[in-house]
């Protein structure tokens, strides 16, 4: 088993003919993901890589191919509508890689998704990978290994760093999920913790947070009350100054709220082992198991 995606995933790629979309579609197909359709308005009827049928609309793609998951690589100005379009077709999972979606657009889109019970991962995220089963998004497949650690993170390359530490020390992953660096996202830490706790193939969880907001604090409370599996955590941004956006739209200390210090304290209160450095992940996992 794995979380959110697996061998039954049938993927439609929104923006399949774009620069990023075509590159990552190749990567996903190479990894073994079942990419059943692509969408680019005006290119309906063509094929991607002589194989994957392209449609003008997601609705046509889903009705023709039975896609159950959508991934979005369209430019920022089309991204929120791509989310609406995917959700309107009834796919159960939408992964939005695109960065730069206005947060006010997300306040509305999240309500639209909630009404339909559609899960969104992202926006502004690297997507997710269930090693050996499927990858949806941009996490490099070669750094991952099949295994029993669930990884959930707000960032991209920092996650790769930690996955790399895990894989090179023999710790494979059940699923790695990049939930995204924006202030408003579709799937948060708690959603992933719940899924990992329920997943029999996940034995321990690595949770990678950063400054901004209070998602990590809420997640810590959730861990304390609902998670029986060992959890190891990391918080990036201990040296970040208040009031400045650190790359991610959501990585900003507002006033005195959202600091790394308070997040680390919340982790510790919840019994989560906190890494001082990404390289600590393996040692802490071994300590907890």
């Amino acid at each position: 088993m794995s979380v959110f995606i697996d061998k039954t995933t049938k993927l439609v790629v929104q923006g399949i003919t774009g620069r990023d979309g075509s590159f990552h579609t190749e990567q996903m197909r190479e990894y073994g993901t079942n990419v059943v359709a692509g969408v680019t308005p005006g290119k309906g009827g063509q094929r991607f890589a002589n194989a994957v049928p392209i449609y003008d609309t997601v609705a046509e793609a889903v009705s023709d191919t039975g896609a159950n998951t959508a991934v979005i690589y369209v430019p920022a100005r089309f991204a929120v509508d791509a989310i609406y379009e995917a959700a309107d077709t009834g796919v159960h999972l939408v992964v939005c890689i695109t960065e730069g979606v206005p947060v006010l657009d997300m306040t509305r889109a999240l309500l639209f998704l909630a009404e339909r019970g559609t899960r969104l991962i992202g926006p502004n995220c690297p997507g997710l990978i269930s090693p050996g089963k499927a990858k949806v998004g941009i996490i490099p497949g070669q750094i991952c290994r099949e295994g029993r650690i669930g990884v959930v993170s707000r960032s991209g390359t920092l996650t790769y760093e930690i996955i790399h530490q895990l894989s090179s020390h023999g710790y494979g992953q059940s699923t790695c999920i990049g939930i995204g660096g924006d202030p408003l996202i579709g799937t948060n830490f708690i959603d992933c913790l719940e899924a990992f706790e329920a997943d029999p193939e996940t034995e321990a969880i690595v949770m990678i947070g950063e400054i901004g907001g209070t998602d990590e604090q809420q997640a810590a409370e959730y861990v304390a009350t609902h998670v029986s599996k060992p959890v190891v955590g990391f918080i990036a941004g201990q040296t970040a100054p208040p009031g400045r956006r650190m790359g991610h739209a959501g990585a900003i200390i507002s006033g005195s709220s959202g600091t790394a210090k308070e997040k680390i304290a919340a982790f510790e209160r919840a019994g989560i082992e906190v890494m001082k450095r990404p390289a600590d992940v393996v040692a802490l996992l071994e300590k907890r198991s």
Partner: protein
Amino acid sequence: MNLHEYQARALLKAAGIPVPDGEVATTPDEAEAVAARLGSAVVVKAQVHAGGRGKAGGVKLAANATEARGHAQQILGMRIKGLVVERVLVVPAAKIASESYLGVIVDRASQRPVIMVSPAGGVDIEEVAAKTPEKLFRVAIDPRFGLLPHQAMALAFELYDDLGQVRQAATIMQQLYRVFLDAGGSLAEINPLITTPEGEVLALDAKIVVDDNELARRSSIAALRDVTAEDSSEVEARNAGLSYVNLDGNVGCCVNGAGLAMATMDLVKYYGGEPANFLDIGGSSSPEKVVAALRIITRDRNVKSILFNIFGGITRCDDVANGIVQATGQMKLDRPIVIRLTGTNEDLAIEILRKAGFEALTDMDEAVQQAVKLAQEAA
């Protein structure tokens, strides 16, 4: 993106919110002329993107135009939290019967716009929230339905007893929410919202922060950006497609990805150093971006060593290596550089760097330790 007070009040005014007269001046002469035109006691207010202007001496009351001129002379060119004051706003000194707070933010917890009011206006609202939370009233707005009139009325009743003032405040809330939406705001604030002795409700000071992701589709708001009010290196970085924040340390950092960039800074600190900056070269990095990054980092004379930390995924390590080689061909690199690369095209990158005389590491901790040591030796 922050708007200046004078820009924010112009948006409020255009939306119909009552705002006192007043104009911006860039010279003492102009300030005097504005004060003379207003013909009353005035307040001269520094226009910079920094809180605590009052405490820093950037807000001053003047009894007449001559005094306004003197205050403007003092305030223009003053530095507040490192930012030079280029403009002052000259407004009539208002007669104030009561001061309240009114703001709209995007709230991460409820995932909605939240409108907040407090009868304790004129002070920092975070302080009110922390010390007297019973004086802060909040309503989460369902963005599908907007701010409903009865919600605004209920909040206005928390501020005023007089029905006329309640209705004025409720109308101002609707107008402020409209400004917030139209500007693509992440915050829109009137603090203080005052009543005059005559019973009028007025916006005395205004603050608007715009979501950077909104700017592409809002050219008139984007045009309000005042690059003179920002750090020039940060402006250059933004123009080059980089995300850069200047800090006080001496280890210059160049990283791909925001999370890894923060983790790198933290690791510099962990090993006893001080990061000189946050810098994320982004995902699809071209050699040009690396060149721009190196130019920006080296301009900071506090930087004593430079650390590259690249985890190649979409970013190709060879692109970064080429950028380093290109940049060091264009400029004299007068400070030591430590390069860590791993992931996509790692081998290719190491070869490119070796040929150009650079060494490359693959372990993050090792690289950070080396960069810290080099900076300490140089200091």
